[in-house]
């Protein structure tokens, strides 16, 4: 397996696919179908029941158990879905390996941090002192 004599294509030939594409494909579709319901519910329910972006209206909305659970689900599924999508965009448009890895890392970690903060916020509104 001397590296010098073969092309990059020659080196990967006959090794088969990385076999990781299906998980990505299925995850993206499953979360898409979940968001079809969750995000549509959220937009309509905020637009039609919340009385403007005031503090009291926000608390009123978030203390309803159905809304709290819905918002938690929305945040978790949406952050998963957008992480997959943004990963695809980064892989497609960023050519420099270093920049690409940094962006993919940020894409993996930032949504996680944001989601933890958002979920804690919903819990605090409902059970905080």
């Amino acid at each position, binding site marked *: 397996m001397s590296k010098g004599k073969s092309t990059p294509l020659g080196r990967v030939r006959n090794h088969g696919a990385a076999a990781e594409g299906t998980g990505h494909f299925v995850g993206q579709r499953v979360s898409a*179908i979940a968001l*079809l319901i969750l995000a549509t519910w959220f*937009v309509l329910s905020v*637009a039609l029941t919340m009385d403007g972006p005031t*503090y009291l209206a*926000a608390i009123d909305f978030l203390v309803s158990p159905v809304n709290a659970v819905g918002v938690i689900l929305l945040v978790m599924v949406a952050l998963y879905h957008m992480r997959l999508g*943004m990963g695809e965009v980064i892989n497609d448009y960023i050519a420099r390996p270093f920049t690409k890895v940094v962006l993919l890392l940020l894409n993996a970690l930032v949504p996680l941090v944001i*989601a933890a903060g958002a979920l*804690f916020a*919903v819990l605090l509104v409902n059970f905080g002192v």
Partner: protein
Amino acid sequence: MAGATRPERPLSPHVQIWRWHVTMATSILHRVTGVGLYGGMILFCFWLMAVAAGPEAYEPVGAFLAGPIGQIGLYLIVAAFAYHLANGIRHLVFDTGNGLKPADAETSAWFAILFAVFAPLGLWALVTFGS
């Protein structure tokens, strides 16, 4: 040289000779709205944290959202969502192997665009003038 014996092959796409297709607009718009909604979702999470931080911390956030820039921003996020939703359904149909004929794909592309234009308008009218 071998012009006469050369097999009839399609010429590769040319950068300057190119017909505009609505389906290419829907494809790039799906990514653009997806990236926009990524930002919108992060802002929404910060909004939740602002609510949890209490009335004083929320004050400026609420004032911004009620102001013109906040309202236009919210409208654009709803419009981006409406488009991503309609075109996402289109892609789920494509995944089943249906709707891929050029004429069908173009019709559904226009439907997605029209939905993205009129659904947010309708919702805005309902919220503003309804009840």
